[in-house]
């Protein structure tokens, strides 16, 4: 696993937390959370092969479509609910975010930043939707149906009365400090710690 945002997420999960990992995939990251952070984890995924892989790692997983509203978690609260690089694949990202901060004391969300300068220049100069190593699929067959930028995400959080506790950005080595100061332009992905606003 070499997605940089995951290291940030790992550092943000308090030791011994009850963690819900939405779109847990093959469970590799959730397994790391259990081993390195002593987390008690539950994964959610819809793909049968992913479920088998996650179960083979000794994890508990629930087969559920995140788009269906995560109703099974209405009566149980987690310390941290995680959604890494899946926000842009959801039918209703805003509803999912609301659910996440309801189910968890905190939520951690990461997503690829569509406001990154490479995306902007690709679209600006070629006139085509960006296709890159990180986003390899063409617009018509991509699972990424709801791309957003750092600015868009923060505006949505404000609308949903969700507080941003912390933000981290992932940028290439050359743009590391730029990504910190101008995340919407230089961060290739962004990671947020959020919670329901007390307001």
């Amino acid at each position, binding site marked *: 696993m070499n997605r940089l945002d995951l290291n940030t997420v790992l550092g943000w999960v308090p030791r011994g937390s009850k963690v819900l990992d939405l779109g847990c995939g093959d469970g590799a990251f959730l397994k790391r959370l259990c081993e390195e952070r002593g987390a008690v984890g539950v994964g959610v995924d819809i793909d049968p092969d992913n479920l088998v892989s996650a179960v083979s790692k000794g994890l508990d997983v*629930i087969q559920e479509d995140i788009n269906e509203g995560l109703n099974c978690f209405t009566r149980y609260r987690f310390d941290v609910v995680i959604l890494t690089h899946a926000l842009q694949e959801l039918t209703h990202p805003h509803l999912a975010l609301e659910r996440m901060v309801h189910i968890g004391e905190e939520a951690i969300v990461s997503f690829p930043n569509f406001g990154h300068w490479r995306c902007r220049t690709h679209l600006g100069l070629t006139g085509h939707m960006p296709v890159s190593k990180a986003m390899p699929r063409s617009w018509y067959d991509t699972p990424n149906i709801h791309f957003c930028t750092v600015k868009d995400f923060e505006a949505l959080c404000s609308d949903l009365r969700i507080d941003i506790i912390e933000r981290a950005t992932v940028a290439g080595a050359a743009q590391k400090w730029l990504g910190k100061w101008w995340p919407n332009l230089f961060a290739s992905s962004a990671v947020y710690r959020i919670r329901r606003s007390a307001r």
Partner: protein
Amino acid sequence: MPNSGAHNSVGLVSPCRVRFETAFQLANGSVLAEHELVYETYGELNAAGDNAVLICHALSGTHHAAGFYADDGERAGWWDLAIGPGKPIDTRRLFVVCSNNIGGCDGSTGPNTLNPETGKPWGAKFPQPQVQDWVRSQKLLAEYLGISRWAAVIGGSLGGMQALQWAIDYPEWVEHCVALAAAPKLTAQNIAFNEIARHAILSDPDWCDGDYLSRDTIPSRGVALARMVGHLTYMSADGMSDRFGRELREGSFTPEAESEWVFQVESYLRHQGTRFSTQFDANTYVLMTRALDLFDLAVGNHGDLKAAVDKAIADFLVLSFSSDWRFPPHRSIEIRDALMAAGKPVTYANIETDNGHDGFLLPNQTYEALLTQWMQRVGPA
């Protein structure tokens, strides 16, 4: 399906029998002065006694869950798919026990065994057992076998309900619990189907008020019809279309043909019904369907399923089967959600299949892979 040969099979098996001579009181208050359980085991119980797995059978199941009998090399046990060396419930590692429930008709004390008070078959006078009774009698069996805790209790359909009852009634006895194609209780529709089955049996003139054995007959037409109705609810509409379509076994659709028509599906159901009616006791069918009707995991908790499962300390695996309309996926989801709400460790999946309720007995790649992988956490490492 590896049923055809000895591949990965536990091989030749034979049933065992144990007699309990102390009085056994059933949930409905009646008392069996003594009773017998017939059971099979596969694999070896280890010295620590921590590798024992209990398999609970469904409505018409038996203790013969895996392997072959010497006098019947063709037909394997009912869950040979899952039990054996290298199979999901791996007998190289695990000691597997399966018993015939009280009230059954395959050797355990039931309506077709002799009532010690009269010296005649119990017949319809056999007391109504409930799922809790089976759990308690299986606990006696465990103690007899020198087992103090099940590494897992596993079952499908009624057997899945029994596994859940185990986890609630004797929490410290159940380390892992697997409920396949189960439900926390029956719906009105479920009970209605059971009533149709019972009515078929009770309407057969050979029923003789349940006393048919002493009159040397069996209500085979009633049992066959009951089974046809039951069997129908185990299959899915798509599965039946794929398997039988509208094909004729006898007769022809051509206009000039004058004949009797027998569709493949009719022939199949008749065959299932007839075969079953010669093998399965009518009183047992009545008792077992009634035990299903009466089952309610939350009955002691005023219907609060979360409160009911709260006592359990097991890790749970709950699986449903997408085309199951007898206990559809949402019934498993009720169980899952109660377990989640109670903070229990649970894995849940809905297996995509056309096999209907029978899905838990039939080959399916995802199902077998999930069960295999999940079972790795059962028993000593």
